[in-house]
């Protein structure tokens, strides 16, 4: 059993599994969003957690300094994801029945006094937050390791957990993409959301059905790309950033032979059986063309599809092109992951001479 879980946890398998699970949960959110589902899930998850904890290697990685917050993050994300789906399921059913969202009920539109209604809620939050922080602080000591030693790097050297998704991306992208361009685009993309999404529905109440594209897109980026990668980076990456299953001992001598090939090597050496051209642009031509097609030709092609037409009709050309470009750049990450696993593809465009690898 543990062997099996170790085997499944490898991103090659766990990423597709997680994506499919994500897809099922989102598609059947009305079933997932029921209280019954939540109870059944909890009833399975709690014993499973204790069983996991009984394993010394798993226990070690969970209680590793600064990994406790991630456990809290996972639990709260599970809860709040379920909770929003629950709220959405209720409202969507009501909207279908012509009743309108719960938030629009007359008793919810009614104005109430700030004192005591809101002030007491806030007071409760403050007290609960204080108690939580103090208890946490008493139970768990803040980590402190050996004094800083610039000449001896620990292995693995990990960034703080909230950046581990980015560090995990380094497996698939060079630092200029994983550490600078992609996070920069995440920030820009987030700020752009209100200006791209012109759907007037779902403003001020929970609903999934009335804004499917926005919610699918956001949830995929947030749960599958951001949170999943953080979990992998935290719990499943050991020395040399090698994969270790959750029950696996971090053996420093584990060697994983990995031989990745650039697209240009595929083209010239494997397929055309010649040597690599000396001219850089010539050498990387195929990759450059593919990248250009992906960024410049795919958007107009999608624009002609039903999906594209619908968006353009609703929000116009400019919004459509910004949206689809951001979406394609986001999807370049899972695409590169899959290419790596299927073909051991390293770079689509490999120009180390210019520090420009894609």
């Amino acid at each position, binding site marked *: 059993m543990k062997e099996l879980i170790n085997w499944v946890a490898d991103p090659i398998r766990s990423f597709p599994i997680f994506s499919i699970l994500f897809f099922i949960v989102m598609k059947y959110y009305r079933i997932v969003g029921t209280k019954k589902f939540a109870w059944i899930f909890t009833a399975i998850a709690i014993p499973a957690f204790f069983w996991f904890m009984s394993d010394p290697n798993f226990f070690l990685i969970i209680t590793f300094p600064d990994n406790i917050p991630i456990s809290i993050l996972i639990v709260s994300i599970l809860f709040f994801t379920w909770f929003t789906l629950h709220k959405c399921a209720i409202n969507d059913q009501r909207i279908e029945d012509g009743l309108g969202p719960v938030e629009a009920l007359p008793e919810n539109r009614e*104005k109430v006094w700030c004192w005591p209604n*809101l002030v007491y809620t806030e007071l409760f939050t403050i007290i609960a937050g204080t108690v939580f922080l103090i208890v946490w602080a008493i139970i768990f000591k803040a*980590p*402190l390791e050996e004094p*800083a030693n610039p000449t001896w790097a620990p292995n693995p*050297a990990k960034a703080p957990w909230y*950046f581990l998704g980015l560090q995990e991306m380094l497996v698939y992208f060079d*630092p200029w993409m994983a550490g600078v361009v992609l996070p920069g685009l995440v920030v820009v993309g987030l700020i752009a959301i209100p*200006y791209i999404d012109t759907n007037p529905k779902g403003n001020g*109440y929970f609903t999934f059905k009335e804004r499917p594209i926005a919610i699918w897109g956001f949830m995929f980026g947030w749960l599958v790309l951001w949170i999943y990668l953080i979990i992998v980076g935290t719990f499943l990456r050991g020395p040399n950033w090698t994969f270790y299953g959750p029950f696996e001992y971090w053996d420093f001598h584990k060697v994983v032979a990995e031989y990745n090939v650039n697209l240009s090597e595929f083209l010239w050496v494997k397929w055309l059986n010649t040597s690599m051209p000396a001219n850089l642009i010539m050498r990387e031509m195929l990759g450059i063309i593919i990248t250009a097609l992906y960024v410049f030709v795919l958007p107009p092609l999608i624009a002609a599809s039903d999906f594209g037409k619908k968006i353009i009709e609703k929000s116009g050309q400019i919004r459509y092109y910004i949206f689809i470009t951001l979406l394609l750049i986001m999807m370049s990450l899972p695409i590169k992951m899959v290419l790596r696993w299927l073909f051991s593809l390293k770079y689509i465009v490999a120009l180390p001479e210019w520090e420009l690898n894609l």
Partner: protein
Amino acid sequence: MAEKGLADKVRETQIWKSIFRHGPPDNARNRAAVVAGNVFLHLHPIKLKKSGVKLGYTWCMGGLTFFIFLALTVTGVLLMFYYRPTAEYAFNDIIALREHVPLGIMREIHRWGAHAMVITVWLHMFRVFMTGSYKPPREFNWGVGVILLVLTLLLSFTGYLLPWDQLAIWAIAVGSNMAKATPFLGHGGPGAMLAQIGDFVMVSDKNDVRFQLLAGRFVGEPALLRFYILHCVFIPLVVGVLIAVHFWRVRKDGGISAPL
């Protein structure tokens, strides 16, 4: 007439009346006065829609984030009394905090609180997204929020270095190494070699973005001072100002979002 209770007697003293200028909030007039007359409470509207008060709607996540920010400010100031940002003292001061300072859980609260704040900001954003609260007229405030999110991560990141242990410097080394790959601005990034005139290299490891961030080519004492000032003074000030803008806009954009 019934005997007056102790609470009523206290309310009639000159001291009490000088602080709270209104009677108990059990009627409309006084309830308005409580909220409007208090500098902290007057951030709130006097009356608001029931849906916006419900925990199931806001999760009070923004409020919780703000509370943790305040708690971090208080514990952070306490920590500053004991901590000196130099390579010689930093680590030992942290040990002292643990071993010699009475009731020494301030560092724990500060550290776990910092992690908690990252989590609550994310969840707050998630809630705001799911209720579509970024839609007009709240587009701008969503943008302010995204900047707050980035600054929260940077606050946490700069604080990570201060204990000056192995965990700290190597986490920052990994993080800041990414900066050297910035296109055009980092010496290891694409485009940097274009900025070269003859033998003169414009972007090198002695002046690129990573150098500016660390005040050096590696995580050393100058980086510690730089991170300390960013962490204790600069970023908190900016966050404080932006939170004020954020709250002001929540009010000006019509309060907590609700169906139109």
